[in-house]
């Protein structure tokens, strides 16, 4: 039989140790030896054989079964699991070669491939034996470290698998600590596992452990708890809701509370606090990007956190606790910024916070401002600056409040002693402070025209008498700008701490002048400003950023310029640019800046890695970016600028650049014209003689001609400019409509001319129409006149006949009989009466005809009365009275 063979085989190896295996007293020791061999055997084969032997002995012998039970099968399991741990942990001292197979990872791969193995391991967690549970957890942790995804998937498919693991958190301390590490690995980037953990009550357990361990004062276990907590909340809206709605943020916020010795910050305490700040940051970040309700969740988290008084604790850490390490203070500031940004109530809440003890209370914002101005750490400056940036964002009222506190006494602040900065000269201190204040001011002014106007009113008393009379703040800033560059030159070391002063002051100026013609006006009011700026743009010693921002500022002087006085209008700025800098290199400066790392580096401000045990140590000791050796090259911008120039500013610059490009093109295509072109003025005036008209048009054309000449000249400058950069023309990818702008202008003039001649042609045609109409009326009139003449002739002949008849009647009356006389008379009367009647009818008709014609003639402007008079007199030809043609 096979079994017997194995036994006999085994005997060959360890047979001499065991004499008579059938005696019951020896069964115990035999089993024990076998067990010992299993756990301590040097050769793998020995152990395997011992295992097989044990199997057969137990199967055959009753006493052996008893012995095994008495000695504890767990020893066996314990041995097996412990072996597994060793098999999965890389041997640290062995130097591994790169191509060599990593046995540890290979083993874990083999082991985790079968879900059954994982299931078996999880079931071991319910064993009573401490070591079995302990080693099993270690095996699982090792497996997770080597093949996390496979193990995460396997555990999800095992019913109650995660429940068992979470239960380990309530186990005795050693097991609990192992379980924390295991669960931290398990929950990394595994949303479903995170949720199940929370379903199983992980939050409560974590907070109870943290409390037990002493909160932030606790040891590394607290850090492990917080790391697990962060894994459960990171991008997981569901878990965030659960924490907020059913457990509340109180237990979390209470970890921030400084207890006991507020002046002692051990490294562990610092790390713990950084971890909690990270937790708060995660809550402020909300769920995953894909979640449509993300913004709502974030807002609710912000609201509830502030309701639970997180701001007080953060201000304590960031502002009031003088002993808190820089990293903690910075973290607190970042959280404050995130808490308030875009959140009305929280903004108001921060604005109404007061710090300090009576009677020296002051608004929290004041304290933060003072930190900005005084701190010796660039990191802290950036973090505190972030609070102001967040405060001013989309907060017009807040900006106004801050702007209203701008009263001309800033040097009371700069005079405050900066003990730490003994190695800086007074000039540098002033510059540093001005630069930091400038940064804050740029937030106050951003997109807020009222604040900009308000700031324009500020006049500064000069700190040093030599500086002269009071000057506007804006001018003072330009002075600081110039001072910063001269300082640089003098030291010979271009990258003293001042190297970010210029970009930040320029940032303020660019923000200030944007969309604010009065600021542009104030800036250009002093002539040297423009000259200085033009020089700065072409200054080879200045950094990419400085030159780019200076170019932006110049561009703003063009596009936001409403001035009309020559020398300060947009046109003269453009001329200054094209003559002193050249348009092509001007635009090149803008492009260069946008391509620089400060503008192109990834912006989502908080893309830092999650805190883990391995990287917290470094973070906790995070100090300032070393100013001396962080960068060595001349002409490079300070790395801190990358965080100062946030995505909004980068976008702003991007849009501004487009605006400047368009604005300058527009200036060239619609030049300020000496001759105003009004179509109406091109027409001949009513009582203007043709000669005058021609003269006027001529002078107009002459003016236009000279203007075209101007344009041709400017075009030549531009062409020269293009030719100069022609070699590297590829860098200028965008089309340059400038060259064509004159052509456009000439085209417009030509079109105007064409239009005018067309108008004249049309007028001429209209005139001949009227002429022909007049002549047709003339002929009509003549015809009517002749009609009238024939009528009056007929009337005359009738009257003549009547006269003849009357004479005849008279003759008859004298000679013959009365009867005949009477008869004849009667007859004649009858006849003449009828004839008269006819005549009267005829006359009436004629009369109405005349009336009608008179009316028509009157309409045509004929002198009807005159005409008719003629007819009455002699019926002769009416005088002709025609219109002049």
């Amino acid at each position, binding site marked *: 039989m096979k079994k017997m063979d194995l036994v006999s085989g085994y005997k060959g190896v360890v047979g001499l140790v065991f004499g008579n295996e059938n005696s019951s007293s020896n069964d115990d020791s035999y089993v024990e030896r076998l067990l010992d061999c299993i756990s301590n055997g040097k050769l793998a084969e020995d152990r395997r054989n011992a295992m097989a032997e044990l199997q057969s002995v137990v199967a055959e012998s009753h006493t052996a079964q008893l012995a095994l039970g008495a000695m504890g099968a767990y020893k066996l399991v314990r041995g097996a699991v412990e072996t597994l741990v060793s098999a999965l942990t890389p041997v640290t001292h062995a130097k591994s070669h790169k191509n060599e197979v990593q046995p540890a990872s290979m083993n874990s791969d083999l082991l985790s491939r079968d879900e059954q193995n994982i299931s078996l391991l999880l079931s071991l967690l319910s*064993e*009573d*034996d*401490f070591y079995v*549970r302990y080693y099993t957890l270690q095996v699982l942790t090792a497996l997770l470290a080597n093949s996390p995804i496979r193990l995460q998937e396997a555990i*999800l*498919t095992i*019913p*109650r*698998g*995660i*429940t068992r693991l979470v*239960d380990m958190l*309530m*186990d*005795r301390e050693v097991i609990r600590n192992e379980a924390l590490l295991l669960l931290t690995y398990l929950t990394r980037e595994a*949303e*479903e596992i995170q*949720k*199940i953990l*929370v*379903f*199983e*009550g992980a939050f*409560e*357990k974590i907070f*109870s452990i943290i409390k037990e361990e002493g909160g932030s004062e606790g040891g590394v276990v607290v850090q492990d708890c917080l790391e697990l907590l962060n894994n459960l909340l990171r991008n997981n809206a*569901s*878990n965030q*809701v*659960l924490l907020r*709605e*059913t*457990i*509340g943020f*109180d237990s979390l916020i209470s970890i921030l509370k400084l207890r006991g010795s507020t002046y002692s910050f051990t490294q562990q305490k610092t790390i713990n606090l950084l971890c909690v700040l990270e937790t708060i940051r995660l809550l402020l970040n909300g769920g995953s990007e894909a979640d*449509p309700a993300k913004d709502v969740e974030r807002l609710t988290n912000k609201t509830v956190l502030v309701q639970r008084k997180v701001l007080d604790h953060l201000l304590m850490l960031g502002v009031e606790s003088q002993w808190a390490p820089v990293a903690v203070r910075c973290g607190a500031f970042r959280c404050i910024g995130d808490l308030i940004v875009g959140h009305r109530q929280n903004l108001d809440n921060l604005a109404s916070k007061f710090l300090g003890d009576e009677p020296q209370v002051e608004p929290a914002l004041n304290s933060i401002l003072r930190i900005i101005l005084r701190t010796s750490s660039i990191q802290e400056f950036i973090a505190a600056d972030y609070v102001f940036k967040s405060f001013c964002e989309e907060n017009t009222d807040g900006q106004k409040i801050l702007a209203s506190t701008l009263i001309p006494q800033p040097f009371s602040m700069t005079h405050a002693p900066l003990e730490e900065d003994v190695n800086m000269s007074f000039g540098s201190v002033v510059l540093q402070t001005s630069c930091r204040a400038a940064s804050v001011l740029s937030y106050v002014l951003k997109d807020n025209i009222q604040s900009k106007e308000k700031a324009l009113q500020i006049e500064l008393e000069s700190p040093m008498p030599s500086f002269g009379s009071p000057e506007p703040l804006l001018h003072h800033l330009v002075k600081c700008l110039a001072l910063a560059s001269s300082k640089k030159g003098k030291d010979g070391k271009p990258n003293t701490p001042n190297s970010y002063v210029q970009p930040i002051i320029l940032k303020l100026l660019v923000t200030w002048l944007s969309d604010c013609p009065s600021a542009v006006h104030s800036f250009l009011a002093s002539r040297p400003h423009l000259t200085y700026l033009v020089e700065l743009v072409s200054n080879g010693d200045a950094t990419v950023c400085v030159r780019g921002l200076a170019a932006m500022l110049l561009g703003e002087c063009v596009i936001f310029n409403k001035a009309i006085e020559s020398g300060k209008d947009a046109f003269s700025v453009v001329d200054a640019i094209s003559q002193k800098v050249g348009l092509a290199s001007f635009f090149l400066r803008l492009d260069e800046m946008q391509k620089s790392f400060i503008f192109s580096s990834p912006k989502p401000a908080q893309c830092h890695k999650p805190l883990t045990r391995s990287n917290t140590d470094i973070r906790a000791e995070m100090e300032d970016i070393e100013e001396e050796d962080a960068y060595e090259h001349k002409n490079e911008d300070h790395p801190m600028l990358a965080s100062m120039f946030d995505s909004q500013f980068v976008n702003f610059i991007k849009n501004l650049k487009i605006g400047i490009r368009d604005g300058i093109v527009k200036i060239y295509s619609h030049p300020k014209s000496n001759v105003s072109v009004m179509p109406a003025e091109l027409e001949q005036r009513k009582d203007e003689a043709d000669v005058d008209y021609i003269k006027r048009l001529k002078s107009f054309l002459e003016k236009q001609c000279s203007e075209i000449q101007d344009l041709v000249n400017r075009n030549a400058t531009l062409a020269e400019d293009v030719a100069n950069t022609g070699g590297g023309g590829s860098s200028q990818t965008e089309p340059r409509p400038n060259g064509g702008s004159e052509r456009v202008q000439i085209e417009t003039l030509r079109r105007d001319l064409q239009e005018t001649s067309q108008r004249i042609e049309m007028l001429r045609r209209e005139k001949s129409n009227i002429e022909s109409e007049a002549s047709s009326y003339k002929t009509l009139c003549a015809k009517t006149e002749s009609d009238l003449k024939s009528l009056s002739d007929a009337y005359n002949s009738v009257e003549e006949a009547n006269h003849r008849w009357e004479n005849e009647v008279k003759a008859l009356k004298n000679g013959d009989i009365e009867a005949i006389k009477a008869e004849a008379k009667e007859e004649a009367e009858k006849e003449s009466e009828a004839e008269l009647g006819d005549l009267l009818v005829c006359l009436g008709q004629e009369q109405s005809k005349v009336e009608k014609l008179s009316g028509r003639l009157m309409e045509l402007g004929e002198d009807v009365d005159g005409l008719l008079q003629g007819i009455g007199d002699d019926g002769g030809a009416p005088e002709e009275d025609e219109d002049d043609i």
Partner: protein
Amino acid sequence: MSYAYLFKYIIIGDTGVGKSCLLLQFTDKRFQPVHDLTIGVEFGARMITIDNKPIKLQIWDTAGQESFRSITRSYYRGAAGALLVYDITRRETFNHLASWLEDARQHANANMTIMLIGNKCDLAHRRAVSTEEGEQFAKEHGLIFMEASAKTAQNVEEAFINTAGTIYKKIQDGVFDVSNEASSYGIKVGYGGIPGPSGGRDGSSSQAGGCCS
């Protein structure tokens, strides 16, 4: 955050029967006609009052799709109540009830209270499962039954609250050993809950599992 008891619920049933809408109606009192497919599980919470005691409901809304079954099963055992939902206009969702129930019986604790809900009862004209059939099924399997509409909110409150009432009664009747192992039944005892050795304390911290061996 103070409550006398905290009950954990799960909502299960075929995909598209309106589980997420029921939860949204209960927690937010609103209806969303178009709802994304639930991935894994989603969480919701609300406070209710039973017998003048504040009771916190933690509700896990699970994905109905088969591919998420292994994940959603992890939530069965730790739940005190389950809402098993079908759609009265889709016969097949009713036909699948038996397999859902089997799953629940296999993975959940034996004392889990199950409420059967025929959802979408506002769509009576498209009804494919009669109320009687629902009642019959519930009776056969010892479930509480209710027809509801997440859209009109009809019976939504009742479904969640009646389930809680049943669990509460089970506690009063001593079905659970709440002073000891409440959390494994999906119940936590808060302030004002049943007095016991750990009555005033957080349920979880009292559940110190086999510490030493």
